């Protein structure tokens, strides 16, 4: 059993992991934010159900599952079962155990400073305004395919840069 303040602290501690999980299923920063808030609220309300010493992330994700199911059904009529979430959660756990979000964020910030303005603008549209590839294409006059491939390329460049940087930090 736990109190609301403890849960609130755990939410802060695991925010990146929870947000990433929500974002992985519904990749829209604003939707993920709203869902995250809803998960936080439910977690705090149900604080008494959480057993100290058990896996908080797994518990919070069980709340998130219901929210995600509801959203997927409403937005695209897609229905997913528990096996889908189980598999996904193991993958998120594996990533979580190997990455330090704060260090990763520093590295990303550094690398983001190195990419071209045009590419950065795409990211701003995607994350800040939540525009889809189609909407960005509409704004820039490019084809959807070229926006998709540019965004993919930017992610790859950022990942290379971050990994090179992490390797340097280890060396």
């Amino acid at each position, binding site marked *: 059993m736990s109190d609301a303040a403890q849960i609130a602290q755990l939410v802060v501690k695991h925010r990146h992991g929870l*947000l990433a999980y929500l974002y992985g299923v519904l990749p829209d920063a604003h939707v993920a934010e709203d869902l995250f808030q809803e998960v936080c609220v439910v977690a705090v309300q149900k604080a008494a159900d959480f057993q100290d010493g058990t896996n908080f992330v797994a518990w919070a994700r069980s709340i998130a599952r219901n929210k995600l199911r509801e959203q997927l059904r409403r937005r695209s009529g897609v229905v997913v079962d528990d096996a889908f979430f189980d598999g996904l959660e193991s993958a998120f756990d594996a990533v979580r155990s190997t990455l330090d979000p704060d260090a990763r964020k520093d590295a990303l910030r550094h690398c983001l400073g190195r990419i071209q303005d045009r590419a950065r603008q795409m990211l701003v549209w*995607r994350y800040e305004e939540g525009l889809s590839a189609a909407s960005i294409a509409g704004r820039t006059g490019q084809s959807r395919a070229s926006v998709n491939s540019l965004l993919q390329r930017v992610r790859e460049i*950022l990942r290379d840069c971050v990994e090179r940087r992490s390797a340097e930090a280890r060396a």
Partner: protein
Amino acid sequence: MNAEERELLHRHLNGDLNASEQAAFFARLQTSPELRRELASQALDETLLSEIILEGRTVARPSSRRRAWVPVSIAAAMLLGLTVILALGRGPSLVLRVTSLEGAAVLHRGGKEEAMYPGQDLRWGDRVATTRGGVVLERKGLRLEIGPDSAFEFQRYKGVEALSVEKGVVRVTVSSEQNHSFGIQQGTLDTKDATIRVEVASHRTLIDVERGSVELERQPGVPITAGNYASVTVAEVEIGRLIGRPRVEDAVRRAARFLESRRNDLVTPMVSEKRHGTAPRRAYAELALLALHRAGVPDTDPLKAELLGLVKGRSIESTYAAALQALALAEIDPAAHHGRIRLCAQLLVDSQCANGQWDYAVKPALSDDPAALQVRRRQEGPASGDNSVTSYAVLGLSACSRAGILFDPDVVERARRWWIQCQNVDGGWGYNDSGNRNANDADKRTLTTNASYGSATASAVASLAALRGMREGDGRPDNAILRGLEWLGANFSVDRNPRKDPGFVHGHWLLAAARAGTILGTERFGSHEWYAEGADFLLQAQQPTGGWRLERGEFMAPEKNDVLDTCLAILFLRRAP
């Protein structure tokens, strides 16, 4: 993972899949552990990138409607976890009402802007931006005094309400009847029966506890009690001793009156007697204008108005004048003085030395296209200068940058390279006159030296921090700054410029330390609380006239030392960046 799966993954992340493609992608996820891992790893990066981009936006455009992503969510959750606050629907006594209004404040409501007026009731969802004056809001058990240049949002999420402070200052008085929680960028704080002052900057929040106590949700069970402050950043919470604001206010008011009594000294340009020829190098008018402005003297004050007219009307011949003029005008009204600030930027850019320093005299600016996006370097300055004037030039450029002026990134890079090159092995900095880095002059305690000393080191740290702020998007850890901070921590003293004789460039040292601390958002150099110690010292050293006389050397113009020191002291007491 094959190319098709990779493409599907990226289109998923781009929000580009239709319903059937989405179902197909999820089916692939179920069969491919590699694809799942890739999604998990990419989703974490995307989340972090979103945060970085939204943080950047908050910093770059403080008036934007959307705040950083996570803190809002956390605040909403936190509020539920703590004693509930400001609950809606309890009847008319809980309406939040504008009870006093000074200057103009803008209310954003339902996508429209309205002027605020006394007696008006606020609704949750409203956003309030103040400009020159403050606003007082009250409801039963709660009084909110919102300062000038502040922005707040009254949020409601699932029946729970929060006051979200985006920038500026709010003084909150909470009665004993209710607990209140406040969402700040770095979390929430919880208080009851207390008076606190909350000041929000882009990267940290300062909370002064004047009465009662507050608790930060990040440090439960550790209340911050009356007479202390907390400086809260995402990474850490620093708690320290508060210098009573009424004492500081009184000292600053007396200091402003002292400056007013010395009008003649302020309006007469000084002529340099140093190696640099006859350029007027002491920009008292600009410095006094900045000090009076920071002291809270209104624009209608006759001396302030006279100084403003004077500095805007005369030609700018020295680096100090250009830098200080940019600092003053960018604070007074960056939009109204845009042209003049741009001129200062052009002068500074065109006068940078080949080695990255600045010298005393500015080159007459070659005019640039005033509509051009960037101020470009049109000519090269002299070969070298010194570190003291260089630190002012950098602060001036930083003010231009805050006022929205963009300039050639090479200027920033060249200055940064210089500061890094001339850092001493002990982590401190010296004066490096004419770019000279070899003089063996450690024992000269009454002169500028290349050996490290306090004012030079603090100026260098402040410069590097300001330059870092101008290189948006670059989070490179700055070793030079960290080593400089270590030097300051080890050598800090308020009664003299560290490693120099008492009275040597004392006021400049205190102000440089304040600049370094403020720009970096740190309250401590090593174990020293720079503001508390410095303010204690200055409050005791203030003369009955209201002025200060800290300088004892002949280095500065002796007959005007008290005018200069008083300006510097005001800026320190106001935590000048």
